[in-house]
């Protein structure tokens, strides 16, 4: 049916066609819907009290309803494969020196970002997040699929390109893991909610050290469990094709599996990190110095050979950590 005509259709038909339309009415306090009337009739003689509660007059009710249907339909259709690559066009570092690079990053790649504290790793992620157009302190420009992004895209949430994970992020909702994921799934308007909930809990538990159930309240999850749930949820439910990760090292989760999970879902993953194991998970490694991209290192065959060794050292450190946590003392056995 043509969009403008929607207001003339019987509400019953509308609700049958657009199952989420009921949410619109409920959210403005209208619970009783006479399915034999059209939206126009309904809005035409809406009583004063209902109008007050809705905070919209008849005309506004129709405009908002049509906009609502329109946006929800777009959201339903939108797929996450709209981005194939981003290009970073260099700006300048903190001293005004030109960066002089043009770097294309593709979906399916993992990029690690290293550099001293305060060097500008988070700044680079922020430039990508806001699709900088020479309008941030670094003067960098970000292209999408090789082109200057459409400004409208910066404003529409159905096209939100970037998902972010950082150590400062916490769950603030007072819900169980189960209800929380359901809510997220519903906002994505997908059909197989139950399956997704199961899958996310399973994946998150594979990443986290200590298992948790679906009934656990979000606020009772440990730091590592929260991080694991955030990653699994971002991988499986977030539409955004680009994932920016700012420092997740100390969370006590299986980092390798986490990255693999994100990659399986066809995402471009950028990780800012001080952690050697994470740094070597990148196909490319950007070295940041004084606010500029100083070097781009492609993971070489030689480096790959030594990842195992690094992981062993890392494991050893983890063992020592848990040894100390459990009241152990350090003796000469750590040299073995």
């Amino acid at each position, binding site marked *: 049916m043509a969009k403008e005509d929607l207001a003339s259709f019987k509400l019953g038909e509308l609700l049958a066609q657009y199952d989420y339309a009921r*949410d*619109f009415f409920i*959210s*403005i306090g209208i619970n009783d819907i006479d399915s034999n009337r059209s939206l126009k009739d309904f809005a035409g003689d809406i009583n004063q*009290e209902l109008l*007050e509660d*809705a*905070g*919209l*007059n008849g005309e*506004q009710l129709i*405009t*908002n*309803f049509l*906009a*609502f249907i*329109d*946006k929800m339909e777009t959201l339903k259709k939108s797929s996450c494969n709209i981005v194939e690559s981003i290009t970073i066009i260099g700006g300048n570092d903190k001293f005004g020196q030109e960066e002089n690079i043009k770097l294309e990053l593709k979906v399916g790649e993992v990029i690690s970002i290293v550099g001293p504290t305060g060097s500008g790793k988070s700044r680079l992620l*922020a430039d990508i*997040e*806001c699709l900088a157009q020479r*309008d*941030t302190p670094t003067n960098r420009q970000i292209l999408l699929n090789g082109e200057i992004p459409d*400004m409208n895209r*910066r*404003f*529409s*949430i159905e096209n*939100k390109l970037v*998902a*972010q*994970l*950082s150590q*400062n*992020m*916490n*769950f*603030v*909702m007072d819900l169980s893991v189960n209800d*929380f*994921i359901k*809510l*997220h799934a519903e*906002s*994505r308007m997908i059909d197989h909610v139950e399956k997704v909930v199961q899958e996310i809990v399973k994946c998150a538990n594979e990443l986290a050290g200590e298992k948790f159930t679906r009934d656990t309240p979000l606020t009772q999850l440990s730091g590592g469990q*929260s991080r694991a749930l*955030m990653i699994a*949820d*971002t991988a499986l*439910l*977030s539409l*955004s094709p680009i994932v920016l990760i700012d420092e997740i090292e100390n969370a006590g989760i299986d980092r390798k599996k986490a990255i693999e999970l994100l990659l399986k879902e066809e995402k471009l993953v950028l990780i800012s990190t001080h952690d050697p194991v994470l740094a070597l998970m990148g196909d490319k490694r950007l070295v940041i110095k004084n606010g500029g991209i100083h070097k781009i290192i492609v993971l070489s065959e030689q480096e790959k050979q030594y990842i195992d060794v690094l992981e062993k050292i890392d494991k050893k450190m983890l063992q020592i950590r848990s040894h100390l946590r459990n009241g152990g003392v350090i003796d000469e056995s750590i040299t073995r």
Partner: protein
Amino acid sequence: MKIVTVSGPPSSGKTSVIIKTIEYLKKDQLEIGVVKFDSLSTYDDEMYKKLGVKVKVGLSGNLCPDHYYMTNIEDSVKWGISEKLDMLISESAGLCNRCSPHIRDVLAICVIDNLSGINTPKKIGPMLRLADIVVITKGDIVSQAEREVFAFRAKQSSPRASIIFINGITGQGAYDLSLRLKEANDYESVIDKKLRFSMPAAVCSYCTGEIRIGEKYQTGNIKKIKL
């Protein structure tokens, strides 16, 4: 003079967002002034002064803050014109969920924050539902999923509006808003302009100073809870 109205629940990040946005606008040498409406007190003017923008404060005291705002907006516009401002921004705390500060054709922004709970978008009336731009703040401290759910709910409540995510502390996202502000309509006066939706009615006996409880003291516009 461009006129922009910014409203939103208390502490949602209005001042932070306006300040970060002005920092971008100042690069274009725009002369900007802010009028802050509040009920009892505010420190926002100090923040704006630090930034070097002209600022006026209006405190409604024991009057209805919504009605106070409406009866003073035209004088604020006059002040802006006399100061030769390029842009006048009004900041008003939406103290009730039924606030309706938006004026037809005048760029209307509503600021809400991720910490206020996922049902907040449903609870706020005309201030959110009839805004042109909904700014969502404090995304830096909640999870990706919560940001997505919150934004979805905001969109359900205000489907016409553009949604912009801004970090009020770092200013991430404020550039986008600054672009939209530059497109705001110019007016020399707002006389005869209309509100997008009526203000909350406030003409019961308590509006005029009654302090006693009981049916016999209640006159005027009264609505009773269904129990």
